[in-house]
């Protein structure tokens, strides 16, 4: 759907976007996008992995094994995988608290993620950060932020450094619909546009901040349209169709790489509550059911692959089971890992 149409439509255009055909003919699209059979299956596998990671996290919590809380992104796999495949592996990632999927899609070591989850010393952050602060600097994953929106202006700095050093990576900064109303969102978009920085902003609009419907929180939708105020190009797409995401992000990333920052809004949905103390009182069971059954990104992709003859039910189950196994092995690794030594409490306060 074009931006012009979106701007004119009454309710954000979400219905129109989401009821679109999405990928259409998968084979044709894949060819157009230059994606091979293996790559598509790998994308499918990664989506299953993310789904299982999130569900396993939930189970671990229900079993009393996780200290604290967590913010699960089950239902948003297409955004993570579509984006990660579209950008380069050395492009920088600034993530947020609901970002396990993005880490996994960028190639994080699931064992180390799980260990960090359980607060173990073997975890990515030596058990100091937990679910909300996972980072892998060696692969340019610059960490997840627990303050809503705080990563948005970090992208300005990363983009600035990339520009000053004349490098050709870009920085992908992810935030949610709620974060778009933080003051720094506006400061940052203004500055990346002003300085023409290589930044790809992705607003994962999953319809809810914590409990507040995006329509009650945002004066004018779509959120992405705000980019116009800063002279930035923007897109608003169906975030649950992985190939749409892939196509859009590829284009957006290339633009960012030339020094033209872009804002992409992906419409998606989360199945779990905001965090573990969320009772889902602010949305109906029917709505959750509707998204699960009719708009689930993994189901849709699987259907497309099967229709194109590149996957069958059995192989799909197999890939899914293999993904689950990876998660289970990660849990075993994490549970067997030791806690940090208490005498190292003060170790990372100063560099």
């Amino acid at each position, binding site marked *: 759907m074009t931006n012009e149409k979106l701007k004119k439509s009454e309710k954000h255009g979400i219905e129109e976007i989401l009821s679109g055909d999405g990928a259409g003919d998968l084979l044709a699209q894949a060819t157009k996008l230059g994606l091979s059979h293996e790559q598509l299956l790998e994308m499918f596998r990664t989506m299953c992995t993310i789904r299982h990671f999130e569900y396993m996290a939930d189970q671990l919590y229900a079993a009393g094994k996780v200290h604290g809380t967590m913010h699960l992104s089950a239902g948003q796999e297409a955004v993570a995988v579509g984006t990660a495949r579209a950008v380069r592996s050395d492009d920088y990632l600034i993530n947020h608290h609901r970002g396990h999927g993005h880490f996994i899609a960028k190639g994080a070591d699931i064992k180390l993620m799980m260990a960090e989850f359980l607060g173990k010393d073997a975890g990515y952050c030596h058990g100091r950060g937990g679910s909300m602060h996972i980072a892998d600097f060696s692969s340019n994953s610059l960490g997840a932020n627990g303050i809503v929106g705080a990563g948005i202006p970090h992208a300005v700095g990363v983009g600035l450094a990339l520009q000053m050093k004349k490098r050709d990576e870009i920085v992908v900064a992810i935030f949610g619909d709620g974060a778009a109303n933080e003051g720094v969102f506006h400061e940052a978009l203004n500055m990346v546009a002003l300085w023409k920085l290589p930044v790809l902003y992705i607003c994962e609009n999953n319809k809810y901040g914590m409990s507040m419907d995006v329509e009650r929180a945002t004066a004018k939708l779509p959120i992405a349209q705000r980019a116009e105020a800063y002279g930035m190009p923007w897109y608003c797409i169906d975030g649950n169709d992985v190939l749409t995401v892939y196509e859009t992000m590829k284009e957006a990333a290339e633009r960012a790489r030339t020094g033209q920052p872009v804002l992409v809004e992906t419409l998606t949905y989360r199945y779990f509550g905001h965090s573990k103390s969320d009772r889902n009182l602010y949305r109906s069971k029917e709505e959750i059911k509707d998204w699960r059954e009719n708009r689930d990104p993994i189901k849709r992709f699987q259907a497309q692959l099967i229709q194109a003859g590149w996957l069958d039910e059995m192989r799909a189950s197999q890939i899914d089971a293999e993904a689950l196994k990876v998660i289970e092995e990660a849990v075993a690794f994490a*549970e067997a890992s030791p806690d940090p030594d208490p005498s190292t409490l003060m170790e990372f306060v100063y560099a």
Partner: protein
Amino acid sequence: MPVPFIMPKFDMDQEKATIVSWVKGEGDFIKAEETVLVVETEKVAIDVPAPASGTLAGIRYQAGDAVPVTAIIAYILKEGETPASLPKNEKASVIAAPIVLPPASAAFAPVPVTPVAARLAKEKGVDLSKVTVEGERITREDVERYLSNKTAPRAAPVPTSRVAVPATPAARRLARESDLELEAIRGSGPRGRVQAVDVNLAADQKSAVAASINDRPARLVPLAGMRQKIAERMTASFHDIPHIALTVEADVSALEASRISLGGLFEQEENGKLSITALLVKIIAWALERNPYINASLENGQIYLWQDINIGVATALPNGLIVPVIHQANKKSIREIAIALGDLRARAQENKLSLEDVQRGTFTISNLGMFGIHQFRAVINPPESAILAIGAIIKKPVVIGERDEVAVRPMLTATLSADHRVIDGVVAARFLQDFVQGVEVPASLSY
């Protein structure tokens, strides 16, 4: 294998949930994620989804039951499985063992414990086997109750002595170091606070007083070491012991003669001088044998009449005096006593006396005769009860014989100081009588 359906945890601090109603029943086919039952926590009602697809079986709890989190509430049978494949459950009651987590819990309790309680116990180092339980399993309240009982406030030991004088920390330190009492120092600070300068002043005054009394010049010798010890002991002796002193004179002509002739022998055999002290020690040892109360000590309310006769001989040193002891003097010959005496004296001068040499004395003799002192009174050497002070041998005119003729004889004056608590005048007198006897008639020692 049937999949266990556990009561999940929704809140960080949650321990149990109450079943409101079962949406699905025993034998129903359920799909994963489908709501199977509704439960209530402290906060609100929650739909509990199935963890897997299959047939619901082996339901263990009913509506209204309060179920601990992570307890198995039912099973989900996979295709082909039957209720017969369910794990046996003797009592479908709340005593069914739940999964005790976290897995690495150091405190293993035979009584089931909730995850929250297990974690709290581990954190606080509580031995769960010591925690008393209200219900069927140990909850957080039980652990908290145990902890509050355990750490009942124990009154801090009140320091027994507290100086309630306003004084700065520096003043207190200086007072400690100078061994001054804060109460005795006048404070110049606000509200009479003792300041460092006040303590310094007091310390200066203290040493100034010692240095010049009535403005007369003196060289200061600190009372330390041996001097101090002697001072302490003399004070104690004089203070504690009621001294009586009895004096006798003895004609030492015979003693002198013995000394000269035995001295020749000693010279030949031992190559040393035989002093008159050696002879006196022998005589005194004999006299002490006959007068046990002189060889005694009063201690712990009892008089010890020592079996051994260990005679100390007061010896002058450059800085004071020391009393080496001749042990078992009554069992030694004159020659042995003389040898011992010579050895002790020599070692005393070289500062080589051992502790044994000065211990366990039962009687002391002190001889100032070599300085021409006729007679003197010594201070008893506690814990002994008597000391014999021996003066110089002086030729004196004495009256002898039946016709009261005057002759010149060598006379020795000896004064016995005795502890009147132990030794009465008569007892002391008898000892001295024996002493004189022994001195004037050497053959008495074989009596």
